[in-house]
């Protein structure tokens, strides 16, 4: 793997920018070129399938069609929601020539079905297998819990390399960074997803439950691959701390940040200084 297509998605240009920074930095460190899909559009996230089922397929269809026309056969979508929408659309199109025909007509672009979509766990595993392991010279010595949330654990024929009820896809990578992976009860529980603004109370309840479980397991940090999970556990943690609903701060790191630290990259280059909950206590020079 020398060149890989790249779909950052909207979050990674805004609130989830740390995921973009750390994924790009990690790819550079591993000698992999990420080629961003030119002129990509939003995948529709939760909003499109909530209100319009045709739009929910048409938006990812345009992205897949662009990737194909730009010669990208493998595309990394680090955001768990983008991954789920893009790959899910590909699966549905491959099963229904009728849906493919309707989408071709609606979007006015052809798509033959040649693009495969990788999530962050698959990407990191591929980098490690391709030689990144040897570059992880800094053993971090932390106790971590792996948080997959919904869209890196579930999705029939979407998350194909893991067990939906007991996901393990991050563990080898966390260990390769010199960390211990602790067993815990919330690896695939929901954080409240896209309700951060519109039903904030549910996000506070569900994210608190995840943070409580991480603390009970004895974790120094939570490792995630999803920008929605990160925002809910990191930014919304401010409110939980203010209301004294949790006893102390719990740092939330992206898997790509953890691996970047183990590869000796600068915390700020990975975006660690942009989190709401600081990680200074975890690593020397942390932000």
């Amino acid at each position, binding site marked *: 793997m020398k060149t890989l297509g790249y779909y950052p998605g*909207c979050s990674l240009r805004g609130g989830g920018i740390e995921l973009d920074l750390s994924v790009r930095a990690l790819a550079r460190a591993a000698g992999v070129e990420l080629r961003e899909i030119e002129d990509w559009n939003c995948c529709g996230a939760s909003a499109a399938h909530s209100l319009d089922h045709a739009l929910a397929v048409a938006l990812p269809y345009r992205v897949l069609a662009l990737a194909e026309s730009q010669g990208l056969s493998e595309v990394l979508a680090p955001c768990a929601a983008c991954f789920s929408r893009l790959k899910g659309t590909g699966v549905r199109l491959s099963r229904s020539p009728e849906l493919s025909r309707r989408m071709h007509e609606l979007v006015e672009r052809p798509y033959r079905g040649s693009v495969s979509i990788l999530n962050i766990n698959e990407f990191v595993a591929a980098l490690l297998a391709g030689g990144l392991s040897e570059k992880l010279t800094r053993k971090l010595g932390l106790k971590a819990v792996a948080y997959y949330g919904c869209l890196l654990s579930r999705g029939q024929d979407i998350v194909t390399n893991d067990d939906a009820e007991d996901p393990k896809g991050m563990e080898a990578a966390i260990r390769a960074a010199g960390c211990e992976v602790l067993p815990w009860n919330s690896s695939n529980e929901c954080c409240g997803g896209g309700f951060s603004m519109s039903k904030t109370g549910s996000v506070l309840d569900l994210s608190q439950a995840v943070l409580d479980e991480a603390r009970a397991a004895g974790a120094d940090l939570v490792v995630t691959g999803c920008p929605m999970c990160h925002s809910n556990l990191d930014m919304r943690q401010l409110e939980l701390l203010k209301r004294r609903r949790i006893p102390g701060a719990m740092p939330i790191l992206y898997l790509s940040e953890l691996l970047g630290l183990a590869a000796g990259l600068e915390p700020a280059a990975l975006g660690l200084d942009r989190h709401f909950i600081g990680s200074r206590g975890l690593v020397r020079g942390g932000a």
Partner: protein
Amino acid sequence: MSSSREHPLAQAVREEAGVVLSECYQCGKCTAGCPMARYMDISPNQVMRLAQAGDGDAMERLLSCEALWYCAGCLTCAQRCPRKLDPAAVMDVLREMAHRRGKVPAAARKVRAFHEAFLAAVEFGGRMEEIPLVLRYKLKSLDLLGDAGLAPLMLARRKLPLLPHAIRGRGEVRRIFEKCRKRTRP
């Protein structure tokens, strides 16, 4: 597996969500695993039961319930259903019907406002951008003060792009939105 006795909702759910409603035997596993069930006025398995009935009374309750709007799309119900059905996809079909008919309960209006603001931002420039999204959401929901303190914090952490970006293909994206709006069903 279509049937001439299938009511219109059952047909729509089968065609759009690939779910045959009559296969649900009401075990309640979808509700047991649903992280949002505690906030819902009727539970996911009750949504399935009413959808099976599909008569006028059932439709009235379904299209005006809050539950449809509180599905987080976590996929737990579909993952665990012993009949391999997808209650969340059924809720998607019903929510779209409720949305198109304007039947949204007052308690769920903020949720709909958020989805609408999100899509309006995407229709405008091809991508979701947080500042336009939040401004649109605040105008639609009239939740003007909620989270007002977060924007400066996000800016301080350089999490928000200051310059808006529109993709070259935004005309193409707008046409996709227009065509979707013109569809007659559901």
